[in-house]
């Protein structure tokens, strides 16, 4: 925010000078007044302060806590990497949770996101009832994942659930599938419900993206003899790069943050373990193993940072070109 003070506004008059010395030569056509600087300092400083203190400082604090055995009440003792050792050698839910989070990411990225893109492409063609279809597909997005978790129980319950009734699997002598109770199946049920919500979100983003594509590009491609598929994959899709990035980011976020839906169904146990659930259980659960929970949080953080760095690299490349 200190950088805000000498900010140079260089829109119109810059070119002639800028051409000779591209970086340093931006002439300041107008200095900011004192009042302008005050406005910028306060209104940029406040959100920066919020983010610094509540997001970044607390994240760093979590990293620090992960090397201690703090239980929330007594004093914290530094125990080195013992928490991590235990995590990788003596804590079976951990590997399951990592696998489930990756599965979540894979499912959203390979099934739900392409489905959302398909919906957007179909609805972008000015079909009749388009607005109805769009609303129906988007509706799940406004629901809370906790509500979706509760609704899933109605549909997938073993004995009188809607799905098993439809399949004719209830009643005497039948062996109905226990969609939610079976630890080998329930993760897929949850993924379907999460994808149900995710596809609508992706659809809306791509609808916006498709509307922003210059129609003359498509016409040019058609004149050059490209068919609909070629036009889409070679011209339209690459042009929507900013939307693609947003969609990618949102897919990763949703996969790493997944929490509410499994928590609402069974508290994230019995086949529905996720990293976020393990953290919450260790930290606010009865055990109150804050140091250990923080170590899991750091692992989740490292996975996120991997994705964040990948995102920053693409943004940086974009900025340079």
């Amino acid at each position, binding site marked *: 925010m200190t950088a805000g003070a000498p900010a140079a506004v260089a829109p119109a008059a810059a070119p002639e000078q800028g051409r000779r010395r591209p970086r340093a030569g931006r002439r300041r056509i107008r200095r900011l007044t004192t009042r302008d600087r005050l406005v910028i300092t306060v209104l940029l400083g406040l959100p920066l302060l919020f983010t610094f203190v509540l997001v970044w400082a607390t994240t760093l604090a979590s990293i620090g806590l992960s090397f201690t055995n703090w239980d929330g009440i007594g004093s914290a003792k530094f125990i080195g990497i013992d928490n991590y050792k235990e995590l990788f050698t003596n804590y079976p839910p951990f590997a399951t949770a990592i696998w489930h989070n990756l599965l979540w990411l894979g499912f959203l990225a390979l099934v739900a996101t392409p489905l959302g893109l398909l919906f957007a492409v179909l609805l972008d063609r000015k079909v009749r009832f388009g*607005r109805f279809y769009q609303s129906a597909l988007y509706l*799940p997005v*406004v629901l809370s994942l906790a509500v979706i978790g509760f609704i899933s129980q109605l549909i997938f319950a073993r004995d009188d659930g809607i799905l098993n*009734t439809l399949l004719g699997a209830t009643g005497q002598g039948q062996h109905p599938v226990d969609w939610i109770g079976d630890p080998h199946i329930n993760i897929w049920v949850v993924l379907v419900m999460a994808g149900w919500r995710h596809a*609508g979100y992706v659809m809306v983003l791509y609808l916006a993206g498709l509307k922003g594509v210059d129609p003359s590009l498509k016409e040019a491609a058609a004149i050059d003899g490209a068919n609909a598929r070629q036009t889409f994959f070679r011209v339209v899709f690459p042009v929507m790069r900013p939307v693609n990035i947003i969609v990618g980011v949102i897919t990763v976020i949703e996969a790493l943050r997944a929490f509410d839906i499994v928590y609402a169904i069974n508290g994230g146990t019995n086949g529905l373990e996720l990293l976020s659930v393990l953290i919450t259980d260790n930290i606010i659960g009865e055990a109150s193993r804050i140091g250990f929970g923080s170590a899991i949080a750091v692992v*989740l953080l490292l996975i996120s940072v991997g994705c964040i760095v990948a995102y920053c690299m693409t943004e940086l490349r974009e900025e340079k070109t």
Partner: protein
Amino acid sequence: MTAIAAGPAPKATGAKDPRAAVASRRVGLHVFLAAVSLLWLAPLLLAVYASLRPYQETAKYGYFSWPHHLSFAYYREAFTQSGMAQHFLNTLLIAVPAVLLTLFFASFVAFCIARVRIRGGFFILILFTAGNLLPPQVMVTPVYELFTRIPLPYWMSDSLTMYDSYWGVIAIHIAFQTGFCVFVMTNFMKALPEELREAAIVDGAGVWTQFWRITLPLCRPALAALATLEFAWIYNDFLWALVLMSSGDKMPVTSALNNLKGQYFQDYNLLAAGSVLVALPTVILFFILQRHFIAGLTLGATKG
């Protein structure tokens, strides 16, 4: 797409009547879209249906059966037994200030990055966006410890700390959600025409006027879309309220739903009624704001 259908398409389809091919494809498209829409709406419709029927009936005949009794009894029960009116009010007390402040701050940050082009703006953008990508669970404990140590006067919070007060939950939502909004608003503002603002600068307008009077009104479509999303997200969040509040009567409505689950675990129909009640405000909001929403989508890059 339309250009292709109108232009060289007839040549490509050759001998077949091109109009018949287009018509049959159109029917196929509608069948597909209608089926998918129905599939997408089914869980909600079935939840509404289940909530209108007594538990004894659905237990006996299954959820997918003709109704014998329909009533709103579960809604009355869910609403009164969990004190939902109070929880709805709590949610508004948290979500409305959080959304407004988030949008305000995010717009200004985006304005500084995209329009004033302050030095280091790009890194500020990264800082906010990357912060929004962090999983909230990573921050839970330190935020909790921090808030229990920040004192507040009694008129602001009867717990005398940031912990167990609306202020704390609002603050964390602002800190967390600003990142996403900064990202969206920066992209949106970069696409806006510069001429108006340049004219204002020539007329001697300060940064505040350029922002509040010139740029922000042009951002209305993006703000409407973001407000819808953000309200839904903050309304739907239950992690932060769960962690940062201890008094049951201050909890937002999503957590009240969890109470309902605790007390009547076996009665799924009551839970369905509670779920529908909790889902209703965001659904209504979505339908009211849909006009703005679609306007926001179609406007995209504003020209002139």
